[in-house]
């Protein structure tokens, strides 16, 4: 066994410091929204942090929409595919998704496993990320072909990998989260921790908290399995709307303004009630990675 395998993927990712894989057992629990929030928050963690977000959900890519980048074309340069920057000219939040490669928004990707595998390999080896502090990878639900391909191609950079597991509190979701955990164990993927999402809903009329998808199950599972519990996030309707209809950045018209100002999505995100809660989660993650946050 060699300690460093030289592959196109390892060469491409050698200037990426940490790779964080976001997964869940069940679908629709909030992987993509957690990935998006993680990418936004990490980018905001210091004025120079550079973050990439790679969407390997090939049949249901959500990241372009959530970052307000729907319909952006991807360009090819002599040094590979150029990612789409969601913060315009500042270029500290780079994004790649199969969603950018589809011509019409209703186009579907119907591929057998081998073809998906090839697409993922290409995403990992051909995207010109540049130097990144963090690469966040959003995955499809479950542990599918996509996950197996991902682990296979990332094997040469295994020391940079870690995972975050997202679940909702109800029994069916926890059951599936356990499968996800077994997958990380089987592939020796270190788990940074578990996030319980959609835990409780505050009625906008009377303020009463309803546990629409039950509550507390994630924390209990974390304790039982010896996982770090990163925190729980309530149902936040403001967040749904923000991630649903995020406006495109003003990047196409490069301005001399500091783009921190023009990165409206981040600004609007920071005003949601979820942002401070997620901030604590990010602190925990940074601590686990040995990157104490400066603030």
């Amino acid at each position, binding site marked *: 066994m060699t300690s460093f395998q030289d592959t196109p993927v390892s060469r491409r990712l050698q200037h990426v410091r940490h790779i964080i894989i976001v997964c869940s057992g069940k679908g629709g629990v909030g992987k993509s929204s957690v990935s998006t929030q993680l990418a936004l928050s990490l980018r905001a963690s210091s004025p120079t942090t550079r973050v990439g977000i790679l969407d390997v959900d090939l*049949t249901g890519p959500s990241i372009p929409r959530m970052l307000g980048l729907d319909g952006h074309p991807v360009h090819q*340069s002599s040094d590979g595919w150029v990612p789409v920057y969601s913060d315009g000219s500042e270029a500290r939040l780079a994004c790649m998704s199969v969603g950018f490669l589809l011509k019409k928004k209703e186009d579907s990707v119907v591929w057998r496993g081998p073809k998906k595998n090839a697409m993922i390999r290409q995403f990992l080896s051909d995207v010109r990320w540049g130097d990144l502090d963090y690469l966040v990878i959003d995955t499809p639900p479950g542990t599918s072909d996509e996950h197996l391909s991902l682990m296979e191609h990332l094997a040469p950079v295994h020391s940079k990998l870690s995972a975050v597991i997202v679940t909702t509190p109800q029994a069916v979701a926890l059951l599936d989260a356990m499968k996800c955990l077994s997958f990380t164990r089987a592939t020796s993927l270190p788990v940074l921790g578990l996030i319980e999402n959609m835990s409780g809903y505050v009625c906008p009329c009377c303020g009463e908290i309803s546990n629409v998808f039950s509550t507390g199950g994630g924390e209990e599972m974390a304790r039982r399995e010896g996982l770090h519990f990163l925190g729980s996030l309530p149902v936040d309707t403001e967040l749904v709307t923000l991630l649903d209809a995020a406006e495109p950045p003003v990047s196409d018209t490069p301005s001399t303004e500091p783009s921190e100002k023009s990165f409206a999505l981040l600004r609007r995100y920071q005003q949601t009630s979820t942002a401070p809660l997620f901030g604590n989660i990010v602190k925990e993650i940074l601590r686990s990675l040995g990157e104490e946050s400066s603030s």
Partner: protein
Amino acid sequence: MIALQHAAAIPDPLSIPANAPEHCPGTESDMAGKADACDGCANKDICASGAAKGPDPALPFVRERMSSVKHKILVLSGKGGVGKSTFTAQLGWAFAADEDSQDNLGVMSVGFMLPSSRDAVMWRGPKKNGLISQFLKDVDWGNLDYLLVDTPPGTSDEHLSIVTYLRESGIDGAVVITTPQEVALQDVRREINFCNKVGIKVLGLVENMSGFVCPNCKGESQIFKPSTGGGRQLAKEMGVEFLGAVPLDPRIGKSADYGVSFLDEYPDSPATTAYLDIIEKIKAQLEDD
């Protein structure tokens, strides 16, 4: 810099075997077994001989088995976690309780069945493609009124396989489930596009988790705001029937967790009314054919 080529320019997905390599030209193509991609493919000889052209030899057996099942319905969702399995379960309960179909009772020999196992069977998408054809051709389904097939989210290998087999044995169509927000709807567009591509009729679209009624103040609010018009608007846009909207009732999830019929348990929930209405519409569609 040049814009990238369209990623979905591919041969008919149904003609690519599960074990084929990345650039398989499709078994129906003139290049089958002869293309560069075919080198090293396990099917090379059989494809080159022309024997792989034409229908799968398992098809007649599947067709035969399926001929005693009156209605076959696929339950699909684009996005995960929108309530597809819960809906399939409740639909199963409702069909099983239907007075009209009590004569054709078959006793099923597979798992995942309704406890009263009368005339509806639910089936969760098995992992392996081989298992799918085996299931369809080797299990004696007996005389069923309904076969409901619950599938994983998205458009995966399993979908291709099941569609290949069921299409040949006369599937009624697919019911697509979504939630109201745009990130879910964009996956529904892809799912309907998939149905069109492979020739499966869309029986209609169900919008789940539309609105939440607070148990305390009875005030209704939207958790997943339909920021682009929700399922109703999308159905119109894509030319499919809108079957109805089911509000979020936390008790629904619990019923599914414990395997009981929500419809019987909570007859006064607005969600029950919505479910029954949708089931009526689906039945009406099936009778039209």
